């Protein structure tokens, strides 16, 4: 046993409590927050042929302290229509995919929440199971299905419906199918969580008072599941904007997305400052959705 004097001393200092708070706080500050500051810093530096490939921000020579803030990378992003098009393409694609996910996911979650108790757990596991396998492999599956010599084209040509293969692979369509497929479970999960919490007596009250089914849905169910809609939509939209694997494997020349552009800027062009500037602008564009999601999530976390 700990001598009571030491224990008392520790208690007075709230040392235990502070240490417990500090552990996650320090780790996340060091490995999550600080890295963003570095991205900002390097986005303001000049690209250089060096290891690492960027110039210094602060230099001390001849008794003068020089601070370089190079806005060139940001101006470069604006001047080249490729980047603007990639941002716009990402947001558009992610938005369409989120709406499709919501349209498929809401009725699914609704049916799950209304299913008999024992079945609910099975359905929940069935929806989540694909997301526990490999993301990469699930995207890869669509390469074999959508390509010109793929399953759908073979099937349709075998049946004589079409003479020449439909071009589905490497299009906007295939990218959206990929995103919807990969992210659907993340839409269903929060929706289901909200819809099961829905108080049945409210629906009964509405129907007792003569509200029609559609009306009850629009005025009671939908507003009460708004939290789930927001959470699910953000869980799909935000990562989809920065998606790299799906446009890389299923996309083509006309499906420009910013995650892929950033990847290529970093790994192929080795232009770290431009890649950092791309990340900063993406973060800025996603700030509102991220804050929105966080507000919802922290309510869930602290309630």
């Amino acid at each position, binding site marked *: 046993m700990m001598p009571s004097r030491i224990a008392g001393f520790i208690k007075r200092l709230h040392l235990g409590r502070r240490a417990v708070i500090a552990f996650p706080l320090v780790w996340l500050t060091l490995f999550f927050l600080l890295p963003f500051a570095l991205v900002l810093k390097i986005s303001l530096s000049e690209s250089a042929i060096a290891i690492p490939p960027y110039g210094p921000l602060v230099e001390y020579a001849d008794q003068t302290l020089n601070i370089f803030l190079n806005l060139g990378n940001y101006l470069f992003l604006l001047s080249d229509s490729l980047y603007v098009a990639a941002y716009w393409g990402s947001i558009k694609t992610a938005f369409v995919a989120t709406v499709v996910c919501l349209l*498929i996911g809401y009725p699914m979650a609704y049916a799950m929440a209304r299913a008999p108790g024992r079945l609910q757990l099975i359905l929940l596991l069935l929806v989540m199971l694909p997301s526990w396998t490999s993301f990469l492999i699930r995207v*890869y599956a669509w390469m074999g299905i959508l390509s010109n010599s793929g399953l759908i084209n073979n099937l349709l040509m075998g049946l004589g419906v079409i003479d020449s293969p439909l071009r589905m692979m490497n299009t906007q369509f295939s990218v959206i199918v990929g995103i919807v*497929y990969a992210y659907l479970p993340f839409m269903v999960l929060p929706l289901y969580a909200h819809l099961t919490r829905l108080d049945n007596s409210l629906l009964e009250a509405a129907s007792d008072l003569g509200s029609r089914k559609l009306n009850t849905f629009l005025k009671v169910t939908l507003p009460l599941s708004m939290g789930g809609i927001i959470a699910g939509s953000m869980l799909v939209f935000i990562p989809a904007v920065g998606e790299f694997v799906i446009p890389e494997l299923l996309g083509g020349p006309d499906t420009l997305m910013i995650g892929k552009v950033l990847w290529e800027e970093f790994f192929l062009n080795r232009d770290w400052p431009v890649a950092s500037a791309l990340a900063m602008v993406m973060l800025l564009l996603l700030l509102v959705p991220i804050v929105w999601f966080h507000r919802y999530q922290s309510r869930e976390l602290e309630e």
Partner: protein
Amino acid sequence: MMRSRRRPSFTTVMLVLGLLFLYLPMVVLVVYSFNESRLVTVWAGFSTQWYGELFRDQQILSAVWTSLEIAFFAASMAVCLGTVAAFVMTRYGHFRGKTALSSMVTAPLVMPEVITGLSLLLLFVQMAQLIGWPADRGMATIWIAHTTFCSAYVAVVVAARLREVDRSIEEAAMDLGSPPVKTFFFVTLPVIAPALAAGWLLAFTLSLDDLVIASFVSGPGANTLPMVVFSSVRMGVSPKINALATLIILTVSLATLLAWYFMRRSEAKRQSVIQQGEGV
């Protein structure tokens, strides 16, 4: 039921269609892993040759091992970190830095992977310049990166459980003079253990699955399984990858089935305890 419905409702139809949408592509993957032809899309007869080739592929096998090792340690650390974060968020009331902590716990859930990956790489490069560590990027840097983003998922799972748990038991233990640490380990922890297990498994699969972040923070030394699969898949479809996919799907399905069995059993036990209680 209040009234019998002959026609299944719209939402039920959508649920069935949605599940078909989720599972048919995986079925296609599995079926074509047994295809004799190299062309993944033409059926040429049943064969298990691609499984043989998969198990002779040294690169894939060593990548599997690397990934499992990283995932094991990342999930374990993420459970520690995430549980403490969840506990602090749900039990400590207000403290300085709470908003910062809750932001940093929820942001990784939605942060695009390319941003997380790039930012961590820049951190490791800067650290190497300043303190000389990490001199080589590899398993250690991937471990840190995975721990960080996985702990956010663990925190959400564990916090959900902590909110459900009846707080009066913990308070009773404290009132009877149990110090906070003891209360946590002997009262709180046993109750939230299932959530810890679920969080660990989730973190484990997330770490195994990550391609983008690992690609950024890895060095020449460490190739994880997704990195190897990705470089192969980029070249087009290959039946060997289908064989690998089948094994992954099989493993995850078995694990899920097992989890379901245990959840159902514990639920049944709880029900019978409640019924016995009512009988008395």
